[in-house]
Every structure is written in structure tokens, then in C-alpha cells.
């Protein structure tokens, strides 16, 4: 599988950006109440993107032989992914008013950004590791 490392990595990055981007767009559509139909299609697109993203992530762990709960930065990434999925789910179904939605949406985006920094630096503290 090492032969496909570059391609899988590129797909992973692409889908990571797409996931964050779609979360951002979905939130804007929701907050601006710009149309239910479009919002629904973005929601389904997000499902698809997240599924491919997770597939690529699993493939990468297998190729590079680095695993959550063995490598610290991957453990952090994995746990934050759970938080991200939880928050994303709330933004899809469980918010009661725009204010609550905006809060959860903002938290989800911040989580995504932090996951991105952990992935980029390969450090558990992500962007904050630059401070130490």
C-alpha cells in the first residue's frame, strides 16, 4: 500500500479541507436561513466527505504504521475527531435556537482548526506546541 501513500495522503487532506469547509458553509446557510433544500444537499455531501475522510485516515494509519493510543499526537487527533463528530451532529439535529447553533458551530470549527494544527505539526499540542 505504500505505493499509494501520496495519493491517499492527498485525498485525506482534500477531504479534511472539504469537511471543514462544508461545515462552515452549512453553518452560514443555516444561520442565514438561505433555503432548506440546499442545506440538505450540503448535509448529505458532508456525510460523503466525512466517510471518505475516515477511510483515507484508516488507510494512512495502516501505511505509516502509526496508531491512536500508541502515538500521542494521533491519540489526540482521534479523541478530538470524536468531539468534532459530536459537535457536528448537534449542529445538524439538536440545536434549539440560532444562538445555541452559532455556539456549537463555532466550537466545531475551532475543533476542526485544532485537529488541523495537530495533523500539521504531528504534535499533541498542535499550534500551541510552537509556544513551548
Amino acid at each position, binding site marked *: *500500500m*505504500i*505505493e*499509494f501513500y501520496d495519493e491517499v495522503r492527498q485525498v485525506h487532506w482534500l477531504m479534511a479541507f472539504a469537511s471543514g469547509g462544508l461545515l462552515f458553509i452549512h453553518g452560514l446557510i443555516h444561520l442565514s436561513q438561505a433555503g432548506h433544500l440546499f442545506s440538505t444537499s450540503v448535509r448529505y455531501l458532508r456525510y460523503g466527505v466525512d*466517510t*471518505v475522510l*475516515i*477511510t483515507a485516515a*484508516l*488507510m494512512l*494509519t*495502516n501505511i505509516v*504504521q502509526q*496508531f*491512536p493510543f*500508541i502515538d500521542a499526537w494521533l491519540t489526540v487527533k482521534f479523541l478530538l475527531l470524536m468531539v468534532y463528530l459530536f459537535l457536528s451532529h448537534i449542529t445538524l439535529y439538536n440545536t434549539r435556537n440560532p444562538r445555541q447553533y452559532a455556539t456549537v458551530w463555532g466550537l466545531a470549527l475551532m475543533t476542526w482548526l485544532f485537529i488541523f494544527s495537530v495533523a500539521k505539526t504531528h504534535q499533541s499540542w498542535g499550534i500551541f506546541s510552537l509556544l513551548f
Partner: protein
Amino acid sequence: MTNVKKLWLFLAFLLFVSFGVLIWSGNQIYQQAPPMPEKVLTSDGQLLYSRAEIEKGRQVWQSFGGMQLGSIWGHGGYVAPDWSADWMHRELMALLNLWANRDYGVESFELANAEQQAALQGRLKSLVRKNTYNPDTGVITLSLDRVKAISQVSEHYQRLFSDEPSTAELREAYAMKNNTVTDPENRRVLSAFFWWTAWATMTNRIDGHITYTNNWPNEPLIDNKPPASMFLWSAFSVTFLLAGIGLMGWYYAVSHGKEEATSKLPATDPMRDLRPTPSMMATAKYFWVLLALFLVQILLGAVTAHYQVEGQVMYGFELSEILPYSITRTWHTQLAVLWIALAWLATGLYIGPAVSGYEPPYQRFGVNLLWVCLLVIVVGAFTGQWFAVNQTLGLEHNFWFGHQGWEYADIGRFWQWFLFIGLLLWLCLVGRSLWPTLRQPSESRSIIGLLFLSTVAIGLFFGAALVWNEHTHISMVEYWRWWLVHLWVEGFFEVFATAVIAFLFTRLGLIPVKTATVAVLFATIIFMSGGVIGTLHHLYFVGSPTPVLALGASFSALEVVPLAYIGFEAYHNYTLGHATEWMKRYRWPIMFFVAVAFWNLVGAGLFGFLINPPLSLYYMQGLNLTPLHGHTALFGVYGMLGIGLTLFCIRGIKPDLIWPEGTLKASFWCFNIGLALMALLTLLPLGVMQLFASLNHGYWYARSADFMQQPVVDLLVWMRVPGDTIFAVGALLLAWFILSLWIKPKYEGGQQRG
């Protein structure tokens, strides 16, 4: 004589003739199966293997999972090789290398020139295809050169099944745990068994010119290629299919639109006011358990699939030391049958009192007792298998309490008896609750009778698994095993599915009983006309003679005929789902029934027929095109039906609840999309790639580590993740839906109850 009576008589006649032919074919296989030698001697009179050693080798093979780890004669798992084909190729290459070195002074066969290679191959073919078995003495005599080659291959296998570092990479590729067989003597006799299965694939029948396995597998080195009969019967098989479709088309053209329509649909749901009896309520726990089993089955499927890319570990964890591939695959396949069967058992128990309105004494006790028995069987049988695969049970206890190694029939004999008794108890429970209705003359007696007969057949035909014993010839075990598997899935399950769906519609008042009865009886005749003798298509290469192959090819093609028209049924069911306002209550059970029809066409019909004619199966048996059919047909048809029935019964157990339909809708589409992705992104392309390899290089290569460890194969296996994930989400949503009916029920009219 009424139409219904005529149909019943014709069905009885058809079953009598079909089972007669099937039993005659069994006798043919028994007479002409590859002989088990008393002794295998070298040409200078030394004993190479005895019968006892070969038979003990088979017990060893069964103990570590048998068909669940690699395959024999194409039947079994797909990650490790087919041991018969692998042994044959290794033995042939060892002989060629030996001769090339001795006769031409080159290091290996590949280094000899083309002329030399052709000469050696000619010699090889005449040596190995010649049958040296003496029926009077029961002795097979082998040349000294051949014995040398066999010793080489035997050593390789003994290393492979140990923890020797030289074969570690291969073990990982085959998803085998280290020390699969712990005892060195057991490893030696295991290789004797593998040798015998390979011998049957390359040795001509006495006075014949094709091998015991009808020249299977494809092996260019010795001209193992499909015999003429295989081309002939494959062509006829397609012709029969077309003829069947034509005839059926004519029947539909003539009868379409003549069915008696229900004059007035009920204004309200006739089953709405049905008050569940205590025994009907007691079936609820069956549905909870089946959901748990279903989720565990999916998890085990994911682990089993993962072993294909990381043979012994799971994301860095050495899982094969605790749960080796052989055991995860065993449990995955067993659980598939168990949870689906549980759905049907529960439906039978629910429907009995619902139909008759009669709750026999101690019925609830019986339902609860059966449930406990089933739990004990699952836990006990699985525990025994785990000990067997870890080689801690001992060969003497394996057959009764461990792992029999026969795919779909691999629980220990003790547990098989226990399960059989459990199925008889189930029959009694269903039968006694239906008895008042069956005894009373009424219009619906026929359809209820057919439904009950299909449940009787499902129960009793498990008895086929009890026919063989520890030392029964493998060809005969295969014969009886397919009685169980094939006659269930392509015979009585089909009848049960058709009858139960039609019956439910009659109870809802959507179709007249008479119309449903005639339609179900006709469908049963059609299914059984191909289904019973069609069993033989699984037996093309297990030592069957040509007439058996011909019968299997001809009749199994007919199995596809009703599936070609299943769109009618799907559309009919879908229409009935919208027939009245109150049918919205049953929207999702009916959508699952529509999915049953869709996957019956695609999974059973298209993907089934793809591998069905003898010539196709000759090259495809045991490649990924087999699980393509297996997954889409078993889950697509019977899994979907199990879920549909579960939902239908739960609607009755909890009649006053508002269903969170969004969850169910998402679950339904996740199942269908996930299954389609699994088939189209991995199993179909990988199967087609293997088919090309099998056609071009020989069957052994399509199953070899060299082929299966290619990066592109890895990539295709990884492509299962999206489909499997979506599918698993579907199962979680279904579980959540059912759980929510109990933990946070929403009642119609908004009232909350305790």
C-alpha cells in the same frame, strides 16, 4: 377439482420427483467419489501415508476452522489459498524443477528452454494424471520422483502451520495466526490430507480422461482445463434459462390482470386492534437479541475484512493471538444465519397466536425456554469453536464440542443436536398455536398450511447437518451440507418469504385470500422446480460424475427464472404499501420487502447466475465473486426480510406508538447504499481481477499471496470502508430505533403511559 387442489397435487408430485433425483444423484456421488486409499506407497514399497493419517489430517484441518481458513476444492474462505490447488501447483513445480535440474542441468524449470519445458510438461502430465489407485488393494503407488516432490511440499506446509520465521510473511498474507497447528505430528498428517485432496484434482478417474473433480482447478501445467461436457451443459443451462423466462413471460401475459381484486379495502387497519397475547409479547426479547447479534456480526465482518490487509494485527494490536481470522470469519458467517433465523423464529412465534387468536397453555413458558436454549447454544457453540481454533480442545472432543470446519454448518455436533431439538420445539410451539386454524376448514387454511409447511421444512431440514459423521467421505459431507444450505436459502426460505409476505397482506385485507393462495402455491412450484435439483450446482467439483453436473447446470438455471420477474412483486408490494391511508403504519416493513425483491434480482439473480453455469464456476469458484453473491443475496434478501418481519411484529407488539420514521428511513437507505458500495467498490472489481488471473495463469495464482498482496488489491479492500461504514451506521440506526420504542416511546395522541 379446484385450482388450489390441483396446484397442491402438482407441488407434491414435483417434490417427490425432485427429491428422488436428488437422492439418486447423492448415490452417484457416493459411488464415484475419489477413493480414500488404505495406503499410499512409494514404488519401492515404502509407506508414505496411511488412510488413518489422511483422515486424522482432515480432523486437524477441521479443528483450526477447516473451510474458514482457505478452501478445499474451492469451498471455503478467500484470503488463504485453496489448499488443493496450492498443493497441486507446488507439487507440479517441484517435480518440474527436479527434472529440469537432473535432465538439463539447469537450476529450475523456468531456466530450461521452450523445447525442454514442453518435453518436461508432457512427461509431467502423463505421470500425474495416470491413476495408480488399485481398487482391489486400496493402494495408491507413487514414483520416487513424485514422493520427493511431495516431501518438499509437505515440509513447506509443516513450516507454514508452525511459527517458523521462514514462512512468517506467508502466514501474514494468508491471515493465519502463528502456530495455527501446535502439534508437529498433526502438522504432518494435515499435509497428508491436503495431498489427498490435490491428488483427486489431478488424477484421472479410473478408465476415464477427466479428473475426479471434473478437471477443476484450472492448471495449465497439466492441461487441467474444462472438459467438453462443461461447455455443453453451460450452453444448455443458458438455453434453459431463456426458455424458462419465455414460458414465464407467457404465463404472466395470460394471467396478468385476471387476479381477483379486493372489492373493498378495510377502512382501518385490521391488525390495529389485535391485542398481543403473553407469548406474543414474550417474542420482543428475540428481536433485541437478534439486533445485538447483528451488530456483533457486522463488527466481526469488519475485523475479518481488515485481516485481508493486515494479516495478524488490527491497527497495531496483535489481535490474531486472541481472535484469529479463522474464528472471526466463523462467527461472522454463523451469526449471519443465526440472527436471520432468530427473526424468522420470532415471527413464527408471534404470528401463530395472532392468526388463530388462541394462546395455548404454557405457550409463553415455551417461548421463554426456547429463547434461553438459543442463547445457551450460541454461547456454548462459539466458546467451543474458540477453544478448537486455539488448539486447546483436542481432536477427540473437536467434532462434538469444537469446530467442524464445514462452512455454515461448523458448530460442534452436540450443539447441532441441541439446535435441532430447539427447532423442533419451535415447530411444536408454532404448530400448537396454529392448530385451531389449520383444523378448521376455511379459505385461508391453504396459505397458512403452506406457511406452516415451509417452517416445518426449515426446521426438519436442519437434520441434514446431522447425517454425516466424523469420518464420512468429504464428497458426501459436501452433498449433505448443501442439502442444508442450498435447500434452506434457495428452497424453503424462498417459500417462507413469499408465503409470509402474501399472508401478511391477506391479514391486512389488501389482497383476497384465494388470489394470494394461488400465487404463493404457483411461486412455490416455480421455486422448487429449480431449487431442489439445483442443489447440485454446488457439487460440480467435489467428486461428482458428469450426469450430476448436467442436472445441476440445467435445474439451477431455472432458479433464476422467477427472479427475472421479481419486479412485478416489488411493484405490487410497493403499490399495496400505498393502498390505504392506514398502510402508512407499515410503510417501512413494506419498503424492506421491496428491498428483498430488488436484492433477489441483483444479488441472487444477477450475481448468482454470474457464477452459476459450470464453465463460469470452473474459473470463479472461491474467488471474490462468490462473496459478492453471498453478501448481496444473504443480507440483501434474507437479512432485509428478517428486518422487515421484525418491524412488522414490533408494530403489533407496540401498536400505539408513533414511530420515529426519520431514523428508520436513514437506516433503510444506509443498508441499501452500504451494501451496493461494498459490492461495487470491492467485491465485484476484485472478483473480476481474480477471474482474469484465473483465466490467464491458473486458479492457484488467482488465490495466491503473490496476487492477493498486490497494492491494487489492498486498495480495493480498503474501498470497503465507505460502504461498510454506511452499512454499519444503518444497523446502529435500526438498533437505536428499536431501542427508542422501549426507552422513550411516543404514544399516538401524545399521551404518555407507564
